[in-house]
């Protein structure tokens, strides 16, 4: 038996979480370094996955592991990755070390003067981050619907504590009020996602009942169900399929989030610390859009096609609505949250455009949005930690005193507005082209998003970074070495993937083609195809 690479990739951060949590109260610094070391080890394993993964092999899932788990209910411990999962695991593994590094001092304010044996916020903070990573990786790897569901839901618990327990302390409000808002945001996050999860659970059980009835033994295995459907052994009635699809989709749409299920996100991102906000939007939310591609489309192809018109409209509303609300925000982090809602609209649009460009674009978008939002949010976090305010109006002229901070903020902002040369452009354009070639009107409307993106990014930059220097920011220091170590690699990655996205498209394309064949859709043909003579030239 070969080395269980997928299990190891999820297990290492989990072990890291336990080890970090077990560090004695006095060894705070060591706990941080330990967490970072485990995050880097995970990154190494994710890199190993990338190396071992063979995009040309033609198999849908690779590096598979499969063991019986709860045999009575047909639940298997079944793992496997396709190109999309590898890309997203890579994203997660890349981001978490930066999240840890950026949040190096975030838990310090909670430490009392005396080391307390039972209350160890630093250890807890980093252990929770690693725990989230482990669960997210597991959710990306699981090819058993039940196993996926388990981690899809379980990751809410550490996220809940990260949002509620380690919130942003930058507000000038009284601490009690801030704590109330924090716990409100955390509870809202939990309730929304639990509600989605419960509906999904019903659908999961329904799926089991259907398989048990028709196959003779109930199963949750994605591969088995897909094969059985292809062979005609498993046939879902139209209404059943639609109901199950809606159950799954609802949960993913809450997680993603799709308008009008988005209202938990601004609160959760606004009230948590910047690194946790990155964890929410760049890592955890990606599980939602990823699951649409992997589970909704592959398990319920006909129902997906049936629901497409409505979902496309909702995605368009998300794009424009999120962008317009971002323009009106007065709080930097809420602005970024609404911008993310707009971007998730693009991702969902790409997924449901059902073209190779749209779906490849959506996958790249998940990765690129993760990196660009992480960069923007973390720099915003550094800015906020200096001034102690999240309000845009409290800044002005920062560019003069902290040019590196302002410059990197601008680059991250430009990535957010999809400037060519930076990674998000490639994915956004692919999504737009993919959508346009099937739904020209929707593609055209979505393109409005690029104007609005420019508006909210540039307004944010103008109000915070340019203009006359405001008195409270006069003594603001520029980025420190640790902060630069967070920002510089992210920006380098944005530039690299913007100019040379091929390493990503190479592994993503086969997976997308597989998904497309599952849904049995092909790209629309060009209206005026080239003649052979023109191709030859």
């Amino acid at each position, binding site marked *: 038996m070969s080395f269980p690479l997928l299990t190891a990739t999820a297990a290492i951060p989990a072990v890291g979480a336990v080890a970090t949590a077990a560090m004695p109260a006095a060894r705070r610094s060591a706990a941080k370094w330990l967490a970072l070391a485990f995050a880097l080890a995970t990154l190494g394993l994710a890199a190993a996955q990338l190396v071992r993964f063979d995009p040309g092999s033609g198999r849908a899932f690779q590096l598979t592991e499969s063991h019986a788990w709860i045999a009575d209910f047909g639940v298997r411990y079944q793992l496997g990755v396709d190109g999309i999962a590898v890309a997203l695991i890579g994203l997660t593994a890349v981001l978490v070390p930066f999240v840890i590094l950026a949040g190096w001092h975030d838990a310090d304010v909670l430490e009392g003067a005396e080391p307390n044996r039972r209350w160890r916020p630093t250890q807890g903070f980093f252990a929770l981050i690693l725990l989230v990573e482990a669960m997210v990786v597991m959710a990306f790897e699981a090819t058993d619907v039940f196993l996926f569901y388990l981690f899809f839901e379980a990751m809410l618990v550490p996220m809940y504590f990260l949002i509620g327990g380690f919130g942003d302390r930058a507000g000038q409000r009284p601490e009690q009020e801030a704590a109330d808002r924090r716990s409100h945001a955390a509870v809202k996050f939990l309730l929304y996602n639990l509600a989605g999860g419960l509906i999904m659970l019903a659908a999961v059980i329904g799926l089991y009942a259907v398989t048990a009835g028709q196959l003779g033994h109930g199963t949750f295995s994605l591969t088995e169900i897909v094969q059985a459907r292809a062979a005609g052994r498993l046939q879902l009635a139209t209404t059943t399929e639609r109901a199950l699809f809606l159950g799954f989709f609802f949960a993913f749409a809450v997680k993603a989030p799709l308008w009008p299920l988005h*209202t938990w996100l601004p609160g959760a991102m606004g009230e948590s610390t910047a690194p946790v906000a990155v964890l929410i939007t760049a890592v955890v939310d990606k599980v939602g859009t990823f699951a649409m591609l992997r589970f909704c489309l592959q398990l319920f192809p006909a129902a997906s096609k049936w629901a497409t018109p409505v979902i496309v409209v909702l995605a368009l509303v998300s794009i424009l609505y999120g962008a317009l609300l971002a323009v009106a925000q007065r709080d930097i982090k809420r602005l970024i949250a609404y911008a993310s809602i707009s971007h998730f609209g693009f991702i969902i649009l790409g997924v449901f455009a059902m073209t190779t460009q749209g779906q490849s674009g959506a996958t790249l978008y998940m990765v690129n949005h993760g990196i660009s939002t992480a960069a923007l949010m973390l720099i915003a976090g550094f800015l906020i930690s200096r001034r102690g305010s999240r309000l845009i109006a409290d800044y002005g*002229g920062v560019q003069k005193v902290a040019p590196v901070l302002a410059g990197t903020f601008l680059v991250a902002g430009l990535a957010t507005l999809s400037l060519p040369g930076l990674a998000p452009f490639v994915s956004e354009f692919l999504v737009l082209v993919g959508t*346009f070639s099937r739904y*020209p009107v929707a593609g055209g409307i979505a393109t409005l998003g690029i104007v609005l993106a420019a508006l909210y990014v*540039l307004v944010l930059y103008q109000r915070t970074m340019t203009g006359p220097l405001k008195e409270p920011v006069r003594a603001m220091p520029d980025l420190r070495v640790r902060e630069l170590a967070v920002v510089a690699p992210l920006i380098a990655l944005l530039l690299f993937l913007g100019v040379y996205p091929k390493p990503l498209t190479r592994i993503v*394309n086969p997976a997308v083609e597989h998904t497309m064949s599952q849904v049995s859709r092909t790209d629309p043909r060009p209206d*005026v195809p080239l003649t052979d003579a023109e191709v030859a030239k």
Partner: protein
Amino acid sequence: MENLIGLLVLVPLLGAAVLLCGGRRLDRIGPWLGTLLAAASFVIGVVLFAGLLGRSADDRTLRVTVFQWVPVGGFRADIGFQLDQLSMTFVLLITGVGSLIHLYSIGYMAHDARPRRFFGYLNLFLAAMLLLVTANNYLLLYAGWEGVGLASYLLIGFWQHKPSAATAAKKAFLVNRVGDMGLSIAIMLLFTTFGTFAFQPVLAGADRTGEGRLTAIALLLLLAACGKSAQVPLQSWLGDAMEGPTPVSALIHAATMVTAGVYLITRSGPLFEGAPDAQLAVVTVGAVTLLFGAIVGCAKDDIKKALAGSTMSQIGYMVLAAGLGPIGYVFGIMHLVTHGFFKAGLFLGAGSVMHGMNDEVDMRRYGGLRKYMPVTFITFGLGYLAIIGFPGLSGFFSKDKIIEAAFAKGGTEGWILGGAALLGAAITAYYMTRVMLLTFFGEERWRKPPSPQEPSAEPAAHTGELPHPHESPKVMTIPMVVLALGSVLAGGLFSVNDAFVKWLEPVTGHSEGHSPVSAAAVTGATLAVLVLGVALAWAQYGRAPVPVVPPRGSVLTRLARRDLGQDDFNHVVLVRGGGQLTRGLVEIDHKLVDGLVHGTAVSVGGLSGLLRRLQNGYARSYAVSMFGGAAVLIAATLLMRAV
């Protein structure tokens, strides 16, 4: 040879990277390094030019694909270059004028705190602009297109501490983004139509495509061109863009970037030729803008804004020419090149004047400066003669040809377009003479101290003390002299033996239209309106003394000072309307979307409050409910049995 094209783009890009990331160590040598790299790309351009000249006229296209940029399914975007005569013309203009302006900036920005960054941005601009004109497909062109937009944003807002500069930069980027939206939808449409968006197959396949589709594509491309080239209705950003340092105005907002729209239309010629309706839209936009810009230019007292109006107007000429099809392409591009020389020269002259006048921009506070800055006066004067179309100078050859071509379109359209172009020529002569007279002739109005109650058009620059006009250093005057030479000679050189027409013809095609008016008559009319315009300006600003405080003026003047109401429209409709929309949406998000969820939570809470009353703590009431429940269950079971 082919690989040099990539290097052409890479050299300034490298410069930008080094200068922007290099840190303070490079502060001292930064300007020279930037200039050197710009000059290096010019040298590469000249080498390539020589290479092209060495080939036969039909074989002057170099192609190279460096690597696949975005390969997804049928979608293939390459990083690939294509250098033909059209691109080459642009490359030489961009690198040539660009290098001169880099040199000029060394002097102009000498007292600035961060010249290194300025040169980094300039190099970035060069790289993006070169990418734009050498790309072999629309998507890469789009990358360059947005790249120049970014460079323009950064440079307009270079003095970020001024809120007006930051606002102007943002405005420029946003208005351009509206145009960019057109370009990106056009690319999508090209992809769904042809399955590719590389120039060669698309342009070859244009004649097999339906007119409706081509019209849609062409109109979208026109929208893009309007944004980048400041054409009506997306022209409003150019005037504000003058907040940037003057070399930027000269390079980006006069000579090169704003002409990208003309490049796009000319490059996409076959698409437009298959869509006569779109061509009509192009010429209409061109004609309207050339008058619009000229009228705005007449009313501005800010020297740079007057020149910006002029730029808009001159690009209107080029767009008009490009919309005429093969009878106009060559002349549009020729005017573009000559305009690149004289307008850059004029802007550098304006910068030199401002440099010597404590950054004063109000022409009503100039006057009689010819004595103090002779070199500036002469070079500016030559540029002036060139732009108004003085016989023998550059502008004469190129503009005259465009007017001829406009008449040659034939029919009523031809008369209207030709008439508009002639009228534009008259107004050009008027406002440029006005600029010339206000700045270099007449009373020395700058000696009058500004009185505090005077509402000045540009209050920002006043420092209180009187300026001491002086000539600029050599590093600034040399580029001005070179550009002045170009403005004098270029048009003549291009026209010898129709050299320029022959050079571009293989790419753009060329046909002589059948003009209802003879060429001599057009030239005569052009000269007549030229004299008229100059005379009118002299009567107003040469003969009579000019008041320092601008008179109230007629309705048209006041309207033109406010850019013919474009900003008021934008403000009311977009800024205020948009603000209300977003605020309304915030309310909706909070009250309706979130409110629905919140309402659910509250009603669940209320329901549990009701149910809670049952839990009163009395064991006996619990026992009652237990017995009651058991009784109901038993009754139900018995009932089911009975049925």
